[in-house]
Every structure is written in C-alpha cells, then in structure tokens.
C-alpha cells in the first residue's frame, strides 16, 4: 500500500498518527507545503485518500482537484470541514471517529462547568501570584443542583447529561425533534431552553442550521447568572455577540474549548475571571488520540483492502 498517496490536510501535530500513516502509505502534509497549487498539480494522480480533522478537511475545491480521491478519513467526529454533498456525488467514502472521544469531551464539558462556576483557574492564578493572605475569602457559585440545558442529545450530549445527573443537576435539552425514549425535559427552541436553565451546553454537530445557534437572543435569555459551555464548534456561537455580552455582564460566564478562528481567541476575554479558555482539547488525551488515530488508519486500511469500513459516515 506504500504507493497510495494520502494527503493530510490538517496541521496535525499527532506524532503517533503521522507515524502510523507513514508506515503504510505515502503521506503528504499539505499544511507544510508552500506552493499548494503546484504540489496538487504534480501529485493529484497518486492521492487516493485525505486525512482531515476539526481544523481542515476536504472542501468542494479540494475534492475537485483530486480526481482519484476515494476516501476521506477524519480525525474527529465532527464533519463540518468536509463537503459531504460533494463526496456523495463523487461516491467518495467518509469516515470519522465517533464513540472513542465521547467520554473525554463529556468529561471536559463538566470540567469546564466546574472551572467556571468554582473559579478554579482564577483561584490557581491567585495562589500562584503569591497574593493569598490570611483572612481573604471569596465566594464562588455552587455547581451541584444547577440546571443544565443541553443542545444536541447525541452520544456526547447524553454522556454530559449522565455526568451532570450525578451532581443532582436537573437536565433539559433541545434537539430538532423531541426524543421519545429520554426522560429529560424537552424545549422546542434554543431560546426557551436558555431561559430555563442556568448552564447551557452546545453539544450538537455544526451544520448550516446550527451555525450561530447561540446568538444575541439566546445569550440574553441565558442572562447575567447564566453560563455558556461550548464543546462543539466555534461557529456555533456568534462570537462578537458573546464577547460583548461577557464584557458587559449580560452573560454570567463561559467555558469555551472552541472558537470562530482557532487558534485566535478574542483578547477581550483574557482579562475576565468568569471565563475559561481552552485550546480545543476536547479529545486531547493520550489515550483517546491513540484510539482516534487507530480508527483513522484502520478505516483507510479497510478501504484499500476492500473490507467493510469501521466507522463509515458515507
């Protein structure tokens, strides 16, 4: 299989994934190629697979430039960087990495809730600065019992609900259609959900419909005591609106793992105590990244050996 060209479109720093791909295929790292147009022209014939991630995948333009592309294997569960319609049209297979990262992302969502409400990062900064003096106390907000509203009740949304329930948090949710087999309270709109919960979590896929699902109206409904947690995608949120709401105190706090234009984060947020800012680490553990890499490689191998794909989307 060494002659099969695999184009990695994302600036992945995952050494294990790179190593496993290089063992089996001819790997091209698109991100580090200076003249991409020239490269594609010269190598398009040999490229039969693309490996993408949350940061870059395969858009219509790229797919058009790769006449022999057979499969796109994403190092993510999210598919927003892949033009699925184009893949469907061309008969290109698509795989992702579901399930293996569910626990990590859900763990981090709760970790963000605790960090924001209990001001863990701010506390850590305070102690590190050497400013802790006897007799200085500060209140933070209790997490147990707070109502949690989840947008998107897929694998990740359900895993978040299960964890939050252990903290006696009443759970409510919004999805396109109410789920019959679920005991949580359903709200037919995101605004209503936001108005009726204290912590709102974005846990749905990014699509045309869910872009800017967190807008000014939702933020205002969540309110000055409400907290937004985003472990979905940056474009789920109207970021300038979010920033102004936080700066003005119209929103109580936010825990954000994703941003509109990663790795750039609005600097207005850097001085705020009521936000926690993470560099897109939802699935960022040694254990999970290895499992994800194994799935990416496993899917590619299965395809080129004419075996059933492990985790096909298309």
């Amino acid at each position: 299989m060494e002659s099969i060209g695999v184009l990695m479109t994302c600036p992945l720093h995952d050494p294990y994934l790179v190593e496993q791909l290089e063992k089996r295929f001819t790997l091209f790292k698109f991100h580090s190629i200076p003249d991409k147009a020239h490269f594609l022209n010269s190598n398009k014939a040999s490229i039969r697979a693309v490996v993408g991630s949350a940061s870059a995948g395969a858009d219509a333009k790229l797919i058009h430039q790769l006449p022999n592309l057979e499969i796109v294997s994403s190092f993510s569960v999210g598919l927003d960087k892949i033009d699925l319609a184009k893949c469907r049209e061309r008969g290109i297979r698509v795989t992702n990495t579901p399930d293996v990262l569910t626990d990590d992302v859900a763990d981090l969502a709760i970790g963000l809730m605790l960090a924001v409400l209990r001001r863990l990062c701010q506390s850590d900064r305070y102690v590190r600065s050497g400013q802790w003096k006897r007799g200085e106390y500060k209140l933070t907000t209790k997490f147990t019992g707070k109502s949690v509203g989840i947008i998107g009740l897929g694998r990740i949304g359900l895993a978040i609900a299960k964890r939050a329930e252990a903290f006696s948090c009443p759970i409510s949710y919004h999805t396109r259609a109410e789920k019959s087999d679920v005991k949580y309270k359903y709200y037919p709109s995101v605004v209503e959900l936001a108005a009726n919960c204290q912590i709102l979590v974005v846990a749905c896929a990014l699509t045309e419909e869910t872009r800017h699902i967190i807008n000014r109206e939702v933020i205002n409904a969540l309110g000055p005591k409400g907290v937004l947690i985003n472990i979905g995608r940056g474009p789920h949120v109207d970021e300038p609106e979010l920033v102004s709401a936080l700066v003005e105190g119209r929103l109580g706090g936010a825990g954000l793992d994703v941003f509109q234009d990663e790795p750039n984060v609005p600097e207005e947020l850097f001085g705020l105590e009521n936000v926690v800012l993470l560099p897109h680490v939802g699935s960022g553990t040694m254990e999970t990244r290895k499992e994800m890499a194994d799935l990416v490689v496993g899917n590619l191998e299965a395809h080129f050996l004419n075996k059933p794909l492990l985790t096909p989307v298309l």
Partner: protein
Amino acid sequence: MGVNNTDSDKTQEEEQKDLPKVVLFRPPPAFSLIGEESFASNKFHFLKTYDSQLPLDQFLSTHSHSIKAILSSGNAPVNADILQLLPEVGVVVTTSAGLNQIDIPECRRRGIKIANAGYVYSADVADMAVGLLIDVLRKVSASDRYVRQGLWAAKGNYPLGSKLSGKRAGIVGLGNIGYEVAKRLEAFGCFVSYNSRKKKPNVSYPFYHDVCELAANCDALIICCGLSDETRHMINKQVLSALGKEGVIVNIGRGAIIDEKEMVRCLMQGEIAGAGLDVFENEPNVPKEFFAMDNVVLSPHRAVFTPESLKDLSQLVVGNLEAFLSNKPLLSEYVDSE
C-alpha cells in the same frame, strides 16, 4: 422577643443582655462572606472577644456566667485553657466540617456537646474534588493560562492530558464527603475503591485496610478524611511512591494529612504525575516550588465558600444553638464514629 419580662421600660440592648451568650474568638469567614445578620437569633446573643480591648481571660471571667455556648470556626481553636474559663458552656458549635481545632477529649470530659457543619458542605467539597481532578488530568488551568498568554497562536497545540474515564479512583476517608466524591466519579466511568479506619457495611467499593495498598492500586488518590493524630502525614513517602509516576493526588481535607515537603520533592522529581490542592500545611503559605509547575492546580482553601452552602450553614448554626438552648437534640451533633 424571646425574653419573659414584664418590665416594659427595658431597652432592646438590655433585653439582649439577658439572653444566653454565645462566645466567638474570631469572626468566622461566613460572617464577612454572607453577613452576620444571617446568623442572628432572638434566642441568643453573640459575645465577640475580638471586639473587646480586655485581655482574653479577663473578658471570659467577666462574662463566664452567661456564656452557654462557643461558636468556633477553623481559625478559632477551642482548647482546654479556654474551656477552663467557661464552666457554663454546654456546646461547641463550629462553622467548619473539620474538628481538628477543637480539643474533643476535653469537651467529652466536661460533658460538652459538639456540633459541626454536618453535611451542608459535602456537595461543594465533592464538586471541588472532582473539579480539581479533571483540572489536573486534563490540564484545564494550565492550558487556560497558555491561551491567555497568546501561546496557542504563537506556539501551537498544548500537550495532551490524561483521560479521566476508566481511571481507578482511591478515596481516603469514605465519610459523607468521600461518598459524594465516589458517587460523582462513578458517573465518569471511574472505578472507586477506598481506605477508611474500618470497612463500611453496605458499601460495594473495594476496601483497602492499608492506605499504601490503596495508593498502589489506584491512578488518582483523593484525600477526603479529617485531620487527626492518626491521619497527620498519613500520605508520606511510601504512599506517594506507591501511587507512582502516573498517579495524581487531590487534597480537599487538610494540608497536614500529606507530608507536604515530600510531595513537593516527588513532584519535582516526577515521582508522581500531578496534584490538585485546596489545602496546605501552613496556609496561606504555599511551597514556592509549586508556582513553576504546570501539573499542579492550587486553590486557596475555598471549597466551601459558596453563597448556597453558607446560607445552609447559617441556618444550621442558628438551628443548633437554638436547639441546645431549648434542650432539644442538636441538628448536626458530632459523635465519634468507628
């Protein structure tokens, strides 16, 4: 008002003077955090030694006949010398969950009851323990710092953390707080085991009689017990060594349960992987070595300071004092458990 008095010329101040007194040696943190008014009652009157110019023993002798109770807090010890000066005291109520600042044997000897914060803090402290654990394993505070310094854009991705789900969590002390921690961690897919003075009936978690053995068989050690003579420096070189290079420790009990110097050394040498600490041996002094470490998360002993819990606490404190003064059972009496 609660005073039986037919003399209607008495001022409110004089009426208050007739009420049984509750003495305080230091203001509890809750007074400044949620206001003293939350602790007011028409059944007793607070007498604050810290508001008086008199030397302590003189102040106490002057008022000893009317002081029926002591309101203690973590920063206000109750020792034999103090109890000696207050022969009328029948109860010590503390705003803390911990009791290490109270001379319990001396209280027992004098027939003095003790009431602590009971379960009002348990959820908050358990939440803090879980928050610190996730933070250490997933590098939440460290990567938040990284982002705020503009390094994500400048230097690229932050190093990978470690998965919480599926980890073995060893709880030291399975009291109410330890139990609340266990319950939460189970929902994350952790495997819980514990060490306690004695095995608990009706608990299905594996029990380790020896804390070293617990450490050797878990990935994360969570200190949830109280500080006593037995538990002082219980987490020592052997225990930390048993926990090992990949192990992390979280402490929401008392700083002195861990041999802090040894823990610092282990962290510096990479003999344990990380720590999440809300308590320290000599607060507010924290070993400076921690400040350069990205694998520790530091909190200034504020696990219980939420308005929700402090409100519950104030009701419990008032309830305990009023119950005692009307000869009713205490709401959260501390009884030596096995």
